[in-house]
């Protein structure tokens, strides 16, 4: 797959119509905010039905950027209209100087980062390894390897062997510990004898020992390499990643990943994120997921004639949201072209409650550990309700309870996101989710507004 086609105004779209729409939208947004009681316009209250002025401004900015990304308007117009709305709200004390500064900061005017042109290769890995002795890692899960023209990233997660928090001198907070921060970094070789090192591009930890990490390979594997052999820590078994069978140019990417239009990619990306959320929160409840932002974007794209073939993508998103019992804004339903789910999505949904992996090393949480049988802990466990990582554990327990056949497997892995095997096969395939998402990676897409219960929007 090749990305990198230039973004910019699309000569086939009516830019005057699109700019007029955006400016009238700004007028309507200003009217909406001015109609709010002043306290409601500025208070960030979870229970408020209306968006605050600040959130409305950010939503407007997202729509403006989406129109620019779709080529309906120039990026300068998008920035200008947003800045004027920010200034109008500021002049009426509806947003503060810092909110305005966030919107107006000069960095916004730069060209958005976009994928460099060239071949992209996404390879599902899907394996869980024990951490090597002395590595501090209890286990390492390898999800997918993505090789882009300017970088090569391996997505990983796992658990630390000793997740105890360590105090950091001079700080009141505690350092939770991160993977791959020691002198022994992961390494790799390829079939041509080239050596690679890997370093943590970004990583995070929840303080209980669960971590995620994006490992960057250096140098970037060159096209033509048939396989890579990765050693995550000294003493851990090497993992061979077959590049040849996923080679660039080996055929079009499956499913919606081949989407051509920016609008379609925007919608599909939101669907991927919803899918991801459904894996992260496998207790069957992602009803909190907020699709209103993408609904605003779709409304805008439709109004200016830039939605086009993305109606099918909206259809996929609506179908997915329906399956996950997520509230579907009417604006999405109105323009959705009926569509089924791509096979990869379907597969993820069907297997998202499964926690079977090739190697299970991590310990279940105490509520499960102390139970006579896995999954017999209280479904109302308060901590599970409170902490996402704990909820993920809980989801594993529940899935095992509901899926007796899985008890026969060694499936103590911390979640279906890690490594899901298809029943009766030996090939891991849950890594399809990140792999698919990577294929439509768009560096400048707006993030979906995810409203968590009990959290501020």
């Amino acid at each position, binding site marked *: 797959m090749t990305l990198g086609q230039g973004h910019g105004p699309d000569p086939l779209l009516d830019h*005057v119509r699109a*700019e*007029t729409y*955006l*400016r*009238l939208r*700004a*007028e*309507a947004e*200003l*009217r909406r905010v*001015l109609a709010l009681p002043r306290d409601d316009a500025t208070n960030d209250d979870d229970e408020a039905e209306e968006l605050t002025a600040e959130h409305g401004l950010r939503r407007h900015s997202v729509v403006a950027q989406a129109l620019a990304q779709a080529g309906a308007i120039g990026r300068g117009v998008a920035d*200008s209209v947003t*800045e*004027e*709305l920010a*200034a*109008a709200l*500021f*002049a*009426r*004390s509806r947003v503060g*100087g*810092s909110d*305005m*500064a966030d919107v*107006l900061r*000069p960095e*916004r*005017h730069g060209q958005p980062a976009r994928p460099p042109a060239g071949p992209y290769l996404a390879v599902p890995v899907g394996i869980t390894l024990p951490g090597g002795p002395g590595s501090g890692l209890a286990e390492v899960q390898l999800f997918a390897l993505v090789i882009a023209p300017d970088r090569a990233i391996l997505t990983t997660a796992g658990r630390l062997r000793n997740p105890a928090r360590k105090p950091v001198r001079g700080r009141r907070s505690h350092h939770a510990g991160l993977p791959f921060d020691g002198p022994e970094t992961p390494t790799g070789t390829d079939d041509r004898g080239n050596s690679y090192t890997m370093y943590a591009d970004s990583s995070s930890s929840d303080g209980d020992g669960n971590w995620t990490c994006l490992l960057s390979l250096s140098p970037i594997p060159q096209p033509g390499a048939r396989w890579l052999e990765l050693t995550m820590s000294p003493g851990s078994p090497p993992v061979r990643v077959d590049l040849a069978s996923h080679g660039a140019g080996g055929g079009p990417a499956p499913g919606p990943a081949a989407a051509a239009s920016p609008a379609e990619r925007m919608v599909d990306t939101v669907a991927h994120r919803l899918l991801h959320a459904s894996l992260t929160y496998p207790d069957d409840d992602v009803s909190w997921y907020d699709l209103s932002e993408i609904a605003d974007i779709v409304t805008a794209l439709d109004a200016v004639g830039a939605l086009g073939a993305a109606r099918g993508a909206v259809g996929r998103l609506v179908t997915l949201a329906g399956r996950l019992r997520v509230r579907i804004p009417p604006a999405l339903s109105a323009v959705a072209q009926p569509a089924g789910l791509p096979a990869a999505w379907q597969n993820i949904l069907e297997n998202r409650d499964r926690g079977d992996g090739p190697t299970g090393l991590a310990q279940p949480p105490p509520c499960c550990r102390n139970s006579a049988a896995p999954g017999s802990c209280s479904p109302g466990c308060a901590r599970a309700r409170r902490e996402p990582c704990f909820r993920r554990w809980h989801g594993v327990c529940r899935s095992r309870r509901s899926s007796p056949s899985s008890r026969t497997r060694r499936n103590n892995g911390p979640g279906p996101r890690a490594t899901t095997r298809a029943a009766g096969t030996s090939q891991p395939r849950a890594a399809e989710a990140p792999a698919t998402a990577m294929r439509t990676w768009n560096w400048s897409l707006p993030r979906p507004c995810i409203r968590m219960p009990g959290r501020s929007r």
Partner: protein
Amino acid sequence: MSNPEQPAAASPPWWALLPPAQTGVSCGEHTHQLHWIDGSLIALDHPDAEGERVLAALGGDRCECIDLVESWGAHGDDLEVLAIGPRSAADKLTIGPGEIEQLQGGGMWRPPAHGSVLSFARLRPHATLPARLRARLTPHRATQSRVSAFFSGSHIAGSGSAFVISGPRTPGQPERDAERRAGLLSLLALGGEFQFRLSATVAAAWADGGSRAGDAATRRPALVAALAGRVAPAAAAWLGTEPDLVDVVPHEGPDWGRLQATGTGSERKVSVALPVGWLASVWAAGLAVTAGHLIVAVTEAAWPDATVLGVPEPGADPVTLKLRAADGAWTRQPGAMQ
């Protein structure tokens, strides 16, 4: 509905129904008066404003009054005024010196380092650059590093040289935009009367016969929004519907425009076409909806008296009304012709 009835052949100037306005501003250690009359802003305490501008251009001290008058002129055709400024008399802008200071403190605005150069170029386009001002500049060389983009390539007309202001930073268009916007907000901080007068100035510039009328087609989206942002709330309140149901487009042509409505009650949809000049002559004067009519044109004006065309209801022809301003409101006077 289109009505052939036209405003008077010699329409009154757009400011004819805007009475003079005055406000005090802090200028150095004093409070000085800015006075607006007949479309112009005057610094009353600076009778030789032109001379002061030249002195400032030569490197002398700048004063707030003169800066504001200059800024007023610079924003006289700035459509951003209409994007930020008030939409109706009830739409109160709260910005004041504190908010302007907040923006400046946040690094979003800095006093223009190049102000004196710009002023000089504007006031003495063919003069030799004075030595005092020249001393503040450095000759522009293509290979010079760390020079400001502000003046890169900007020749001072007639000076025979090109100059740049040296500095470690290289502000670009975004910072110039932020600076310009802060200047605009400073003008809006002068108060409601000045906000409406500045808005009217801009609208008049883009209206038929205005200095920017020829460019109106290229800025149509901004003009549509400016018009819609003011016509829609007025028409909606007049007809008891929602502003979002009012469709507004700029009208081009010799007649006053058109007004149509469909549906009933709060679902009533309205379609309005009015010229951009309506903002200057009608809306800015607070006449949008008066005596139960949507005022669409001013035919005679001698403040506080006005003769206007008003539409009593959608689909009806406009009628002539005689109005008088008193205590900040327009009231219908006897003698109106139906």
